[in-house]
């Protein structure tokens, strides 16, 4: 007779994914207990992200080329969402390659402080030691610092490029963690129902009311401010909305006959959850993910702005904070990261809207 091994559940892809997770976990353990620093903490996040993106993003898109083309055609009809996507791709490219090309964003040079961006000239009063008087000097923007410098003479272009990397890291990784937890919570809760549903949803309620800010302050107090912790805290607390949305979606899927049909043909609970329910909620999950990235990016910026961010990395929130102190002498320091933040959030929102309309079979585009 036939034997059903639980190993087979969910197919080869999930197996590879779980394998990758195990290997990563093993390296983390090695890193902590045996060897010193195989990878920086962020490195693990990257590997994790790449594993998820390839196995559940690139591979299925490649395998279902026809479907991919169909969705792309539909997304494309949203002019703004294509614009948003272009901006995001540009931003990712800048974040990946930019830091190699720009100057050191942390290099302080007081001789070149408050230099305006190219094309602008400002007047600065400088105390002259020889004459013991204040002189008014014209300072023009230079190509050495195309976007100007801040009050410590740091190159703003370099800082913004570094900030793009931080924002994307936080936005993508924290969202990925949140979405993974939220999806599994939601689907499991909806599929099993009864007390499982009760327990998971009440836990979600508690997490929802839990003040994430206090948790973060607490963790920063214990472990010190670090980008890794910020990502983890945002990710581990931010899944509640996704869990609820996915649950409501999965609840309606569960009553569809194909779930009963696959049960009647011998599918196990795990197979139904991973092979039948999750792929069906995936389109909403992608939309939720895209639309929650801007919130996460803003949350990180807000944290850095009030000084709870990682002080070792230059993020947009941090530049904003520096900028608001010198708003009267150097307006560009605050305006530039502000514009970038605004555009990034807008781009993700546009893309999210476009994807939502593309995935919604009811919308006749």
């Amino acid at each position, binding site marked *: *007779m*036939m*034997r*059903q091994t639980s190993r*087979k559940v969910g197919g080869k892809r999930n197996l590879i994914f779980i394998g990758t997770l195990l290997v990563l976990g093993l390296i983390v353990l090695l890193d902590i207990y045996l060897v010193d620093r195989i990878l920086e903490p962020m490195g693990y996040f990257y590997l994790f992200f790449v594993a998820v993106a390839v196995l559940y993003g690139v591979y299925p898109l490649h395998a279902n080329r026809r479907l991919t083309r169909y969705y792309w055609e539909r997304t494309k009809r949203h002019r703004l969402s294509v614009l948003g996507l272009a901006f995001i791709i540009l931003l990712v490219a800048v974040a990946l390659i930019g830091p190699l090309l720009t100057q050191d964003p942390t290099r302080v040079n007081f001789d070149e402080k408050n230099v305006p961006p190219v094309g602008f000239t400002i007047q600065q009063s400088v105390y002259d030691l020889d004459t013991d008087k204040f002189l008014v000097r014209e300072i023009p923007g230079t190509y050495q610092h195309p976007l100007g410098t801040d009050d410590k003479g740091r190159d703003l272009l370099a800082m913004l490029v570094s900030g793009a990397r931080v924002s994307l890291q936080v936005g993508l990784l924290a969202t990925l963690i949140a979405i993974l937890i939220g999806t599994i919570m939601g689907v499991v809760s909806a599929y099993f129902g*009864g007390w499982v549903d009760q327990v998971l949803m009440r836990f979600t309620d508690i997490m929802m009311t839990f003040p994430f800010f206090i948790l973060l302050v607490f963790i920063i107090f214990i472990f010190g401010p670090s980008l890794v912790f910020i990502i983890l805290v945002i990710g581990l607390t931010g899944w509640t909305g996704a869990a609820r949305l996915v649950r409501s979606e999965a609840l309606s899927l569960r009553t*569809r*006959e*194909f779930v*009963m*049909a*696959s*049960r*009647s*043909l*011998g*599918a*196990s609970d795990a*197979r139904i959850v991973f*092979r*039948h329910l999750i*792929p*069906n909620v*995936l389109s909403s999950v992608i939309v939720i993910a895209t639309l929650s990235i801007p919130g996460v990016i803003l949350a990180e910026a807000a944290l850095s702005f009030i000084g709870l961010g990682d002080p070792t990395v230059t993020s947009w929130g941090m530049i904003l904070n520096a900028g608001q102190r010198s708003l009267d002498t150097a307006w560009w320091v605050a305006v530039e990261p502000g514009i970038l933040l605004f555009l990034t959030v807008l781009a993700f929102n546009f893309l999210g809207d476009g994807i939502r309309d593309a995935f919604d079979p009811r919308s006749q585009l």
Partner: protein
Amino acid sequence: MHHNILEIKQLKTYFFTRSGVVKAVDSVNFGIRRGESLCLVGESGCGKTATALSILRLIDSPPGKIIDGEIRYHDEDLLRCSGKRLRQIRGHGIAMIFQDPQSSLNPVFTVGDQIAEQIRMHLKLKRRPTMERTLHLMEQVGIPRARERMKDYPHQFSGGMRQRIMIAAALSCGPEILIADEPTTALDTTIKEQILDIFRDLKQQREMSILFITHDLGTVAGIADRIVVMYGGRIAEVGTVYDIFDQPKHPYTHGLIDCLPDISARSDRLTSIPGMIPSLIDPPDGCIFSPRCPRSMMVCRQKRPKEVIVSKEHLVACHLYS
């Protein structure tokens, strides 16, 4: 004596709802023989589907629960075997197809994938033989250009074609018994005939037993070897197709057959059985059909009728014959 490959004994499936306990299946007994098609007939809400779902333990719990009984398949009691064993039997020994072909296929996978899933799951075949088998199945249930259509998604098929796909998926592992829960109800008449043809072919070629659930007596006459008539969660009458149509014993069966429109009699109105379907929450004492029964007697309201053998294959649960 005929050998039953599936034997349902004293099956009781109740649903525990807020307004009370619904006795959807109340002490039902019947057996399915090898290679026969058995029709389970009755009006909506009489417990046909609940019976079918109980066989594979697919009743949603809560609110439903199989209270008591035995479902004997070969030497095993399906109500008492392990979950793992049950999953092996589902699809491989006993397969099931459902009423609505619109929603019984997963919209995000190609139909070929969904047929192949069963084969991989139960038979553990390699990639190529799985593909070959899938293709063969699709051709067998009459899907034109099967090789190309394997890669299509469910929404690219019509209702009848989708039902064929479901049948192919259910047949993929060569089950001994196929439970078909109103498989033609959602289809139009011409398509319905084609699907029934597939069932007839299957029965002949594969010697498969079919448990066919329907409320349409026309369909029953076309496909059944034997018929089980259910009313109010209980069995009213069991017999061969000739027994039931030519010599119905139970007043309810009489009523059902009288309801069939007669093409030779000119009449403006269709006949119907007076009264309402009984509530299964507080069924009346005695015979559950007695409030609507034209021939009801004193005893009918007091004692539940026993099943009486009226001829070799013919059973009826009615006080008129005891």
